């Protein structure tokens, strides 16, 4: 990468300036760091909302039809806190929607992608800062659409986060299938537009704006993961957007893409039809399966960086790690059918998807072994971010292995849509991604705010969350083994599931405690923002380029022109006395090395 590009950009950037009042600095900001923080804060707020929705679900499963104290007045006020079946269906739908589209995807790509990409590659900002700002501002109409849908007649969407037609298309099929579902589709489309603007920006920035000496194979794993994620989004999102518009068409003007001839529900008039309900599932999962990797790859990248830093040892198998995330991205496009094994899809096609699904477990296994290899022979420092990162590996083993059960088609016939799959994706997304995000917040907090978070309270937060999340999600595996179905407001009137009430109550008690104890994190986060000890540039003695910038970095990021001499994982190098060797530190001879 030539120096010219960087310079040309910083000149053009001077036009934006960084003077101005509160509004232009913190609200209509073009600075990637502020936009990253905006994504972070809005994701954390929605994380709280999504958590509350989950507690409503847990209450109903533990104490069916009993009025829910306190929270019940918010979630189900017309019923006096008693969760009705339609409210329950709304809760499961919106919990998933909020967590996936407003929390996980924006916090990974939006918050950490934005904040870290320019800092880690040595650029002064994103390639197109205006587009970056727009990508955040397109989230707000989405928030507005989804937020208001809770208050329209019939309530928010109730078709599941997968919005399978005909339930989601026929307005008479359920109460939330009124304007709630329409607003849901509009919100989803807007999130898609936001992600699309973000991802083209990330790709351009990573390809075009790396500092001199920052070759592709000197990029940290976080950046590789963000890069692959951006590619996945750019290729998969148009399909979801198209499908969303088709469903809107079906709902609003009767196009009938997803309705069979003579489709009707609840004795309403027949729809025109001529379409196929399964078409939606193919289109939806063509996006949403790659989206599963969009929701885990950046977490994997960040965990790789944290583990290497606190093992004080180079990352084991850097290139195999890069190849395996690329492999996951490639295979990720041809496994969507494993969500549809029992959907009625051609069973021959199911067999094909089964084989590709089995194969996609391979790169994940390789990554896990390489993390273990990184720990091997290191000097592990048990800081809060490291504890979260190690727990990610430990939990991802469970989430990865349980996937093999579902991939085996004959077993999937039995455990499809049971709590086994609920356990599986919560192990990947909560115990995996959310724990990695906590770790990443503790790790990069000094760079964001120039202050340290409290490490002791961080460890308390880690310990309680780690213990309780296992109490919540692990027993769900054996619930699923018994066939306990998901999304049922009252499963206990089936003879087969009657004995599962006590276990569900245990899970719910643990879930309530876990959510309640997150207050430790909230206080630590906001307290440290204002009163934490100053961190200096590189509190963790890390090699990464971002740690050479001031904390927090000013507008334009670096107060010197970074030149990169090596990869980011040179810990314990015999070339230097310290146990770390920053990417910008010239080698003893002072020349560029080619030992990549």
């Amino acid at each position, binding site marked *: 990468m030539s120096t010219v590009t960087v310079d040309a950009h910083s000149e053009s950037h001077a036009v934006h300036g960084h003077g101005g009042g509160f509004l232009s600095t913190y609200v209509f900001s073009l600075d990637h760091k502020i936009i990253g923080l905006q994504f972070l804060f809005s994701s954390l707020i929605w994380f709280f909302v999504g958590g509350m929705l989950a507690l409503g679900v847990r209450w109903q499963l533990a104490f069916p039809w009993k009025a829910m104290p306190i929270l019940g007045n918010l979630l189900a006020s017309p019923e006096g806190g008693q969760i009705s079946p*339609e409210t329950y269906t709304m809760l499961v739908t919106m919990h998933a929607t909020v967590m996936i589209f407003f929390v996980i995807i924006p916090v990974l790509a939006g918050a950490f992608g934005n904040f870290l990409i320019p800092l880690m590659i040595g650029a002064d900002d994103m390639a197109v800062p205006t587009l970056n700002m727009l990508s955040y501002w397109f989230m707000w109409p989405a928030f507005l659409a989804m937020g208001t849908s809770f208050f329209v007649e019939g309530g928010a969407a109730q078709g599941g986060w997968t919005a399978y037609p005909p339930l989601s298309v026929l307005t008479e099929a359920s109460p939330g299938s009124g304007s709630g579902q329409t607003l849901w589709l509009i919100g989803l489309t807007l999130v898609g537009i936001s992600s699309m603007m973000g991802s083209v920006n990330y790709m351009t920035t990573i390809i075009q704006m790396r500092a001199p000496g920052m070759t592709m194979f000197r990029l940290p794993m976080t950046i590789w993961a963000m890069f692959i994620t951006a590619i996945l989004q750019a290729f998969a999102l148009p399909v979801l957007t198209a499908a969303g518009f088709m469903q809107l068409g079906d709902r609003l003007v009767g196009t009938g893409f997803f309705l069979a001839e003579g489709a*009707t529900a609840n004795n309403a008039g027949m729809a025109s039809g001529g379409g196929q309900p399964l078409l939606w599932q193919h289109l939806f999962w063509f996006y949403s399966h790659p989206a599963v990797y969009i929701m885990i790859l950046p977490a994997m990248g960040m965990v790789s960086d944290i583990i290497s830093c606190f093992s004080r040892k180079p990352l084991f198998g850097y290139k195999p790690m890069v190849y395996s995330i690329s492999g996951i991205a490639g295979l990720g496009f041809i496994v969507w059918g494993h969500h549809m094994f029992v959907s009625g899809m051609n069973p021959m096609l199911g*067999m094909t998807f089964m084989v590709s699904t089995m194969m996609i477990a391979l790169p994940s296994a390789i990554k896990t072994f390489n993390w273990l290899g990184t720990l091997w022979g290191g000097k592990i420092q048990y800081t809060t971010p490291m504890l979260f990162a190690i*727990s990610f590996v*430990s939990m991802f*083993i469970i989430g990865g*292995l349980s996937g093999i059960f579902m991939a085996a088609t004959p077993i999937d016939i039995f455990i499809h849509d049971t709590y086994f799959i609920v356990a599986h994706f919560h192990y990947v997304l909560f115990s995996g991604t959310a724990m990695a995000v906590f770790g990443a917040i503790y790790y990069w907090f000094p760079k964001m705010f120039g202050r340290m978070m409290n490490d002791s309270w961080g460890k308390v937060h880690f310990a309680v969350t780690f213990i309780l999340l296992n109490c919540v999600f692990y027993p769900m595996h054996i619930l699923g083994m018994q066939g306990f179905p998901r999304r049922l407001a009252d499963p206990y009137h089936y003879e087969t599931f009657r004995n599962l009430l006590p276990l569900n109550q245990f899970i719910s008690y643990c879930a309530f405690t876990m959510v309640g104890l997150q207050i430790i994190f909230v206080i630590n986060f906001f307290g440290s923002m204002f009163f934490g000890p100053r961190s200096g540039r590189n509190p963790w003695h890390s090699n990464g380029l971002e740690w050479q910038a001031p904390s927090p970095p000013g507008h334009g990021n670096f107060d010197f022109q970074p030149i990169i001499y090596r990869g980011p994982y040179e810990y314990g190098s015999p070339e230097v006395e310290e146990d770390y060797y920053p990417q910008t530190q010239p080698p003893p001879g002072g020349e560029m090395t080619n030992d990549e």
Partner: protein
Amino acid sequence: MKSLLRILFSWTGLFLMVPVLGVATFVVAPSFNIWLPKDVSEHGRTIDALFMFILYLTGIVFIVTEMALVYFSWKYDATKNEKPVKYSHGSHAIELVWTILPAVTLLFIAIFQMEAWARAKMQPPNIPPTVEVTGRQFNWDFRYPGPDNELYTIDDIVRTDGKLFLPVNEEVLLKITSADVLHSFFLPNLRLKQDVIPGMDQGMWFKAKETGGYDIVCAELCGWGHYKMKGRVYFLPRGKYEEKLEEMRQEQNTMRVEVPEEDEG
């Protein structure tokens, strides 16, 4: 003893809880009567055996990888490990080993279970449908072909009480479909599940090997009443099954449907 306590009350101890309690959960679950539900089908054995096979296989991988993590987290704790770090960027040989081994294992699982899948979904028996099952919000309707063994004729028996009667020890073929939205016809005790789709007929076949009544569960979100879309399937010996069919036919023949007269105004 002292060092054991030191391990337990360290971060290593916390990570050790994962494999220990993880395995323990599956060991004690059966004594709390939580396990795969009773299987009354002929093919269910294959699915359960496959489940157990993968459970043991992943169980071994789970224990080995988690214990490696636990061991490393203890052995290489910076406060104890005096040795300099191993300045290693990886090993080509080791990468090859842990790429090829899981690849072979996964391919083996993939090929191993194809047979069971093909039998469950691709090889329907060559018999006329025993019953037509229709899912509708929020009920399972059943249509028996009646004495002429042909569906959609005048002697069909139509039931909307959610009770399905089938002969035991005989291959049966269900024709399943939906009248409105997606549902899923789930028989936990027969290890069977198939989504039903409006405008599309599908087959489902099995042989039950025990008499008795078992749950029919709807396993695909179908609206607010999804939770109550419950049915029961009863397996009867041939004689009793025919008696039951005859009884239902009589009931239908003598049934009077009061049609309210149309308002002339």
